């Protein structure tokens, strides 16, 4: 069954049309990349899926249910989590606290003042597991704001993962990173995908990542869908080369 179905999504800001009539279908377990030159409307498209913006027209179906107007915090509860282009973490808290907040939010403990022993241990175990999985265990008690850019990004991805999402939305996960960090993040994404049976939609500029990770690629240009297909199709697509790869290369 289809996990995410986007139908004719359009977003207007005044007279500017940021996203025009874009449709997309993501199957469970798929990694989908969204690429396109700057200003192609990728982030706006993403923001509509995650609930940060409401679409002007069109529909978003998650698990067959229309969620076009469901607020962002509710979309988290039905299994969507996202990261941001500029890393959004809790900088003055430790890595452990960052993850713990995410785990507690996900478990619905946000209003609790006293947790019973069982719940506390469960939270603790979940946090340890996330630390383990991300390789941040040795930095668990440091403030996130003091970590390297790559580690901050890793922490953000793990916070999203703590929500036990079925669909993970990653907005330029390797933006502003060096080669080694980019490679590490890609490895992490692949590992998470394999272990957690996640569906992932990611916006990415680094073509090595895109062609390495994605099952299917969608190309946006000037708010419209230019092409869609497997990495092979896209690499061979002339329109894409002209509009994007050619100029980017």
């Amino acid at each position, binding site marked *: 069954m289809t996990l995410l179905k986007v139908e004719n999504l359009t977003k207007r800001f005044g007279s500017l049309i940021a996203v025009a009539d874009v449709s997309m279908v993501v199957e469970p377990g798929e990694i989908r990349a969204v690429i396109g030159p700057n200003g192609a409307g990728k982030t706006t498209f993403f923001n509509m899926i995650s609930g940060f913006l409401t679409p002007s027209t069109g529909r978003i179906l998650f698990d067959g249910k229309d969620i076009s107007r469901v607020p962002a915090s509710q979309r988290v509860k039905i299994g969507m989590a996202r990261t941001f282009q500029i890393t*959004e973490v809790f900088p003055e*808290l430790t890595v452990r*606290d960052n993850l713990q907040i995410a785990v507690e939010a996900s478990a619905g403990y946000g209003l609790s003042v006293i947790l019973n022993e069982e719940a506390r241990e469960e939270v603790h175990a979940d946090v340890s597991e996330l630390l383990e999985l991300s390789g941040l265990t040795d930095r668990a008690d440091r403030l996130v704001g003091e970590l390297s850019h790559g580690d901050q990004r890793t922490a953000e991805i793990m916070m999203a993962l*703590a929500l036990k999402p079925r669909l993970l939305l990653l907005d330029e996960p390797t933006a502003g990173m060096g080669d080694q960090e980019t490679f590490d993040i890609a490895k992490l994404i692949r590992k998470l995908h394999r272990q957690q049976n996640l569906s992932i939609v990611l916006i990415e500029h680094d073509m090595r990542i895109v062609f390495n990770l994605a099952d299917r690629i969608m190309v946006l240009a000037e708010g419209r869908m230019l092409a869609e297909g497997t990495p092979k199709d896209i690499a061979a697509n002339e329109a894409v080369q002209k509009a994007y790869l050619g100029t980017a290369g």
Partner: protein
Amino acid sequence: MTNNGSLTRYAPSVIGWIVLVSLPEWINAVGYTDLGSRVVILGLAAMALNFLLGHTGVLSFGHAAYFGLGAYGAGLTLRYLAPSTGLAILVGTGIGTFAAMLIGPLIIRLRGVYFAMVTIAFGQIFYFIAFRWNTVTGGDDGLTNWTRQPINLGFATIDLKDPVAFYYLTLVVFAVATAIMAKLLASPFGRSLLAIRENERRALFLGIPVNLRIWLSWTVSCGFVSIAGAMYALLNNFVDPRALHWSQSGTFVIMAVLGGMRSFWGPLIGSAIYVVLQDYLSSRTSNWMSLVGLVFVLVVLFFPRGVLGMLGRRSAT
């Protein structure tokens, strides 16, 4: 290592409590017990404000309103309702908390300076009610003709006329209130508030209903500030509209900043410094108001992280 760690961690609180508990011993000699009570009460108010400001990241400049409601609630109870100090504290706290809960939905969608401005403005409603409703509140002259009453515990009666006895009552209320605040902040609920302070967008996308949490934090914060207000009325056996005025809110904020917004106990330190300084200045010069203003300016320019913030930074490096 762990022993050492927990020692350095708990030592300041232990010392702090020893100082607070033994305060009358060394302050009473010079007749300053009431000043000690004031430090503790205004410290509680500043800590309560800091629950919202320092730990939720929301700037209220209108907390005096709920402080004042607590004060009037207590005063009016003793004047008109029943000669019971306990009931006075309960009523004061209840009124302040309830008012905050009602105002909350009108303001929680706003942020930053806008939130600050609207909280100030709403606070003034209560100021004008107290100011204008002469027949009940005594208007500008304040609410008089009442005193705090002895507390009957069943097995013993505590006569609160004695400033030292009242100081200890204040300290017990303070201890219970701060224990609850500390417990709240160390809980999943408290962590979700820290999350909002740190990064509202991230909090929202963890599924935390941000506005609802701010409403709760605001109500809790105002609730504790109204307890402080009730105690303040009992301390003075008097309330006047100045307790509700926006300039009073400013002093709570400066206490929190002066002591250190990021630390739990900081505002108490801020209160101690501010109260002692103000007491000293106002006994020395009639222009103490400009000197207090100057304190504001200097703190902002040179101590923005507050006393404990500076210490924390030094020990971290």
